[in-house]
């Protein structure tokens, strides 16, 4: 915009210049970028010392996503007049697009373009600064998927930096083995994960979280007995852990011990009230003990918190089963329909 204003002043002095500028702008607005380039090149020939002419030419190349050709024109514009924030922003963006993130940073700082600057900082390995800039940009555009993506990446890299420091310690401390175990578990390498977890426990038997992770490994492999043993140990080490109580309750239910499951799940619910997953399991376990009225209330609490999730789908199914057993056909039908609707929408 600024470049266009400057050009307007220049063209009053040079009529031919004015014609080319007007033709270039018209072509650009019409999407005819080749003609715009041709016209703006003529403008640069006629007025080589005019920064705005170079900016406009660079801007057209940028619009064409021809970053390589945009860069020299924008650089030249800033040599002529370094106080053009728009040109800095465009040059920074072009440099970033070409992979020159460190070079882009000072230009983007000049332009105060937090969003692109955040990305450039991230690409340059300056992750903490990137997080700050991306979070600032996210305040303006809270749901921007690109910003969310890059912020997620930035946080992930920060985590990795910390984990790399931990994993790099020699000999590997228990926490490092725990971390490696978690990484292997996330990658689906169950045997390797178990080895790391066991090694961690050998170094520090009271480490929190490892028995929980081992229990989840066993549960995922269908070993309910092993899972119960590990969840029970985690619950012993961390009696205030809602997660341990939840998992222990859930596996007890799978093992057919509904009353024991109810006790653990109640404890989990007291430790962390209102967790839909725990309320769902507690509802299932309560139903399995035959207390259908209490189970119904618990499942209703789930649905107050969750409406369209997998948890909600399961809650509707459990409610349908309860109403079926209670002989409340219309309620059962309604819940079945809601269950089926959610199921289909999630497929």
């Amino acid at each position, binding site marked *: 915009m600024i470049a266009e204003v400057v050009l307007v002043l220049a063209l009053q002095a040079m009529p031919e210049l004015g014609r080319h500028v007007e033709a270039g702008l018209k072509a650009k607005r019409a999407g005819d970028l080749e003609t715009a380039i041709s016209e703006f090149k003529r403008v640069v020939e006629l007025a080589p010392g005019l920064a705005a002419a170079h900016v406009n030419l660079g801007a057209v190349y940028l619009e064409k996503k021809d970053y390589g050709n945009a860069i020299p024109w924008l650089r030249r514009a800033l040599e002529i007049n370094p106080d053009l924030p728009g040109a800095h922003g465009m040059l920074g963006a072009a440099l970033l697009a070409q992979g020159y993130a460190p070079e882009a940073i000072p230009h983007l700082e000049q332009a105060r373009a937090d969003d692109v600057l955040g990305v450039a900082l991230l690409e340059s390995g300056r992750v903490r600064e990137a997080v700050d800039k991306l979070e600032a940009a996210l305040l303006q555009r809270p749901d921007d998927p690109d910003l969310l993506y890059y912020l997620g990446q930035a946080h992930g890299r920060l985590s990795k930096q910390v984990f790399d420091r931990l994993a790099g310690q020699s000999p590997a401390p228990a926490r490092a083995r725990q971390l490696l175990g978690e990484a292997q578990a996330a990658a*689906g*390498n*169950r*045997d390797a994960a178990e080895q790391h977890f066991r090694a961690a426990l050998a170094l520090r038997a009271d480490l929190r979280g490892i028995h929980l992770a081992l229990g989840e490994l066993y549960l*995922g*492999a*269908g*070993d*309910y*007995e092993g899972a119960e043993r590990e969840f029970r140990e985690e619950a012993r080490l961390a009696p205030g852990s809602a997660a341990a109580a939840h998992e222990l309750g859930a596996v007890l*239910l*799978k*093992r*057919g011990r*509904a009353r024991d499951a109810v006790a653990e799940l109640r404890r989990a619910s007291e430790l962390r009230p209102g967790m839909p997953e725990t309320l769902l399991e507690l509802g*299932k376990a309560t139903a*399995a003990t035959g207390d259908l009225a209490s189970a119904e209330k618990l499942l209703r609490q789930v649905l107050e918190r969750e409406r369209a999730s997998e948890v909600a*789908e*399961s809650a*509707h*199914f*459990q409610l349908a*089963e309860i109403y*079926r*057993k209670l002989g409340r056909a219309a309620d*059962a039908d309604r819940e*079945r329909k809601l*269950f*089926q609707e959610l*199921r289909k929408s999630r497929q």
Partner: protein
Amino acid sequence: MTWLAAALCAALGTLEVARPAGVDFLHRHSPTAQKYLLETMGGGVALLDYNNDGLLDLFLVNGGKLGDPLKLPADFSRREPAYWNRLYRQNPGGSFTDVTAEAGLAEAGNNYGMGAAVGDYDNDGLPDLYVTNYGRNALYRNHGGGGFTEVTAEAGVGAGGWSASAGFFDYDNDGRLDLFVTRYLDWDLGRNVPCGAPLRSYCRPDKFGGVTNVLFHNEGGGQFRDVSARSGIAAVKGKGLGVAFNDYDGDGFADIFVANDGMEQFLFRNRGDGTFAERALEAGVAFSDEGTAYAGMGVAFADYDNDGRPDIAVTNLALEKYALYRNEGKGQFDYASLATGLAELTARSSGWGLGLHDFDNDGWKDLFAAQSHVLDNVEKIHSWLRYLEPPALFRNVAGRFEKSDLASLPGIAGRGAAFGDLNGDGHMDAVVSVLGGRPLVLLNRGGRNHWLTLRLVGLRSNRGGAGAKVRVGGQWAYATTSGSYLSASDGRVHFGLGSEKEATVEVLWPGGGRQVLEKVVADRVVTVKEAE
């Protein structure tokens, strides 16, 4: 070689591996690098006394040859003896003789074999055979004298597509056996798609559409009529693998449970007017306890808890838990895998053929399952899972299941399973068909408990008495050859009596009659003829 001499004495709790002389069958499924889904699904086994000599004979369904890759149209090479289905006649003494050719069963057509069903559809007192295929199915009429005649075209029961389990039953109680055929997927060899990355593996069923099952009504005179649409059976598309029959709501009409792979299960309630309504969700047997679909494979439809109501057990894949639905009455079931301990016992296993039979004659039906994962390379994908698994026997202890120790049995790719007292010693035996392998014959060493086996002869009802409900003490059994996976079992009804040396037997015939036999002496096979 006799049964006793052939037994390897690899103790399996009550079961021993036997290698009866004369059974040289090798199932050929032709595994390829293309991973045609067909390769991993067959084949079935049937136990039947085709020549009425009182000894159970053995029929095994073969697969077929597959090119790698296959050239279409496919030639499954079923003319070559290596790819024949096989019938083995049991000789006195326990050996077998291959009678496939002389029985007229060598010609299987250009199909890839899947399963077998057995029933006396023409009421001549001789069990007939129905073989399901990828391609056209085949009906073989037993004409006596040790031979069968293929009558598929005349009977009108060829179906087509990819059929899996089938079973004979009399859904309208007209005294003639009708035929139900499950079909698996809307899939053909020309539409095989690559699945699995980086390791190619067999596709999940959700890669393909479902298809309708087929119901044939027996019109008499050797003719059937496809009533799939008229009866309501074709109103829903499924991915059917297993099928079993029983009267779950006690209205006197046989209902149908179909085990579907990777979707909700089907329970077709027989309305008694020739039509069916699919009621699995309403009855509580469509999903797992968590409301999730699972890979239904085989099914058993029998009363495991001796309350007089038939329950349903379904095998599925590892981590899904075999499903057990307890019949609560009034057409309602309760998911019972957790409470009975079956979930914990089966959470790591993948099952196919199964049956609820009293293996220790203690008066409670035990659960037997043929096992193996569906993916032959599953261990490379999930290191904690196993492709080959030994069969499992879950002993029923007053309604709760405990696993019998079968640890000495090597892992196999079990698929079908058929049940019957092979050696006539009063103890239920099992034969497991093995994908790409030799069948596993498991003889029951038994114990000292007493038993009673009833051979039903219908007069007003169908000749084999299929669909009769039989009560002995607190136990109920349903006369059928169907259930399991791709397989057919001995149609006689077996009861364990524990320490009882005699029993009162009550038979409710599908034709409506009721017969009571008092003080029937135990430890024998008793023939019960329907009163005229």
